[in-house]
């Protein structure tokens, strides 16, 4: 299949899947809840208030009409008004999303650096102490609950050592410039170094906590793939040609061993978004993850619908990009 056709086919499939996703979200927010208004207003609300609320949410219409309205809204990127913040949900999402992306990117950078370095070294020095350290590091990384690790690190670095700030994206009296919404990027752009260092000190702990699990899985994959490559014939040939060990490892082996890691980076994105929910809650990080949790806790249905759909869309888009870049690299994937 030609790459262009493949991309078209994948985009078409994604549109179908997104329609299904929208239907699932509709079920979650419109069909399952027995009494959303009761949940919002409480059991003792006066009848007029309940009716008004039902009308406001469009719940007095038949379910098919509700579904049509809902799909219409999505097509126009209109998710309604948040019951809690009384602002359009889309505005809220645009407001909160950069924080999540910034955190996800920082964690990914951390995870790739640490994971690749540890994986390569533990493959080269197999069964030496660095290998043992890296394996312990990885197995702990995939076993430790994110929220618990976050709490303990906060206790240690914020409360006991007072090295790092306790939460949020910036300190109370520092007002980072806002252009794109990415604090670190914006402050570099404006040359505001105080805001930059402040933002950096705030992102270290959450990025570590969120990226740890990904770093662990990258280190494991990197180790396995590096060991696999080092065993192959072309490496032996390169060595027997008299190339230095360093050249063989970095020029020949590492390049090939990195391919599976690219997959893992793509796949990690979903777990990063899931992990962001917990990390943002612990570090009071004003991102979309915390926004969803707060919306769910008070059953703010428009906000839940909008943000869940948005996250699913971003996630599917990321997977699509990974698949397409894969297909571009390796024609065998285009099936």
């Amino acid at each position, binding site marked *: 299949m030609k790459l262009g056709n493949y991309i078209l086919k994948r985009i078409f499939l994604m549109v179908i899947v997104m329609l299904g996703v929208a239907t*699932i979200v509709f079920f*979650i927010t419109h069909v399952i809840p027995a009494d959303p208004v009761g949940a919002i207003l409480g059991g003792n609300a006066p009848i007029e208030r309940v009716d008004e609320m039902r009308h406001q949410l469009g719940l007095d219409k038949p379910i098919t009409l509700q579904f049509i309205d809902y799909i219409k809204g999505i097509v126009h990127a209109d998710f309604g008004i948040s019951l809690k913040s009384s602002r359009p949900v889309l505005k809220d999402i645009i407001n909160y999303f950069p924080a999540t992306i910034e955190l996800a990117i920082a964690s990914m950078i951390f995870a790739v650096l640490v994971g690749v370095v540890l994986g390569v070294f533990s493959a080269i020095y197999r069964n030496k102490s660095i290998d043992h350290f890296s394996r312990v590091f990885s197995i702990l990384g995939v076993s430790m609950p*994110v*929220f618990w690790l976050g709490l303990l690190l906060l206790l240690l670095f914020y409360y006991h050592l007072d090295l790092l700030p306790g939460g949020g994206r910036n300190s109370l009296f520092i007002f980072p410039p806002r252009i794109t919404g990415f604090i670190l990027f914006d402050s570099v752009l404006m040359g505001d170094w105080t805001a930059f260092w402040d933002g950096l000190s705030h992102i270290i702990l959450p990025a570590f906590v969120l990226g740890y699990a990904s770093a662990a899985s990258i280190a494991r994959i990197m180790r396995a793939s590096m060991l696999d490559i080092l065993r192959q014939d072309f490496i032996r040939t390169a060595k027997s040609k008299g190339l230095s060990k360093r050249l063989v490892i970095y020029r020949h082996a590492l390049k090939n061993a990195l391919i599976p890691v690219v997959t893992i980076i793509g796949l990690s994105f979903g777990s990063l978004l*899931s992990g962001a929910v917990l990390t943002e*809650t612990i570090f009071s990080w004003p991102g979309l993850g915390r926004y969803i949790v707060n919306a*769910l*806790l008070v059953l703010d249905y428009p906000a839940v619908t909008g943000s*869940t759909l948005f996250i699913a869309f971003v996630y599917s888009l990321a997977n699509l990009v990974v698949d397409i870049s894969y297909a571009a690299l390796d024609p065998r994937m285009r099936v």
Partner: protein
Amino acid sequence: MLNTVRNIGQKEKIKLFLEQRKPIIEDWKHTYYLWKSTPLAMIGTAIIFIFLTIAIFAPLLTSYSPTEQFMEERLLPPSSQHIFGTDQYGRDVFSRVVYGARVEVWIIFIVSIISVMIGIVVGITAGYFGGAVDEILMRITDMFLAFPRLILAMSLTAVLGPNLTNTMIAISLVDWTIYARLGRAEAMKVKSQPYIEAIRAIGAKDLRIIAFHVLPMSISPVIVQLTLRMGTIILTAAGLGFLGLGAQPPTPEWGAIVSDGRNYLIDQWWITTFPGIAIAFVVLGFNLLGDGIRDILDPRLRR
């Protein structure tokens, strides 16, 4: 043939039985040998064994109730009376953690059953019948895979009403997709075998072929995958509990206990620390065991 078998003595019967199953027994012996030579898998098994023992014998391990409140004994540090201390309601943290093991075992058990059942039914149906059925079922699977796991699970629990039962339902509704894909792959493999064609030629119906031939072949990879995922099930349940969108107090679910102690973290570190260690420990056990299983089943190692 049947008569001769019936006429021989009990001992002979056992001998014959063993004789017939020699290859399987040899295989198991080899597996045992591989397991013994993978120390990490042994540690994992030991951890899981301890976890299950604690869950089963919970009432014998502690004399305190996990839910009864003693306000005059609140926030006591660990001592010989309360080895993990007490929480803000005077409940013994140790007995909450110990009884929590029961909750976690229950979650793993129910989630495994529901998710494997849905996954197997969807997967085998898709793989066996193929064509349009396959296309539709797999697209539905994709729709569920389009959500980050935790986000779908927490939306479901929040809307169904956050409690233990709904947590288990929600995690199952997120987890079945993996087994569906596995079951489908396995069903497609089995269906194209010549012996299936032979059975069909004799006149076996689809349902019979699925139940007696495709299903048994698909079960073992699913079981392997299930053991690999048990750690993740606990982490998801604990994450939901921690967010307040899972098991609710006073249910001693480990994630919920960690969340209970959150506001007391600075001075009463024990409420949060011990259930967290319990989660990490058990998930570690499942991961070590899962890694071991993967190594043991690796055909390159088996040879």
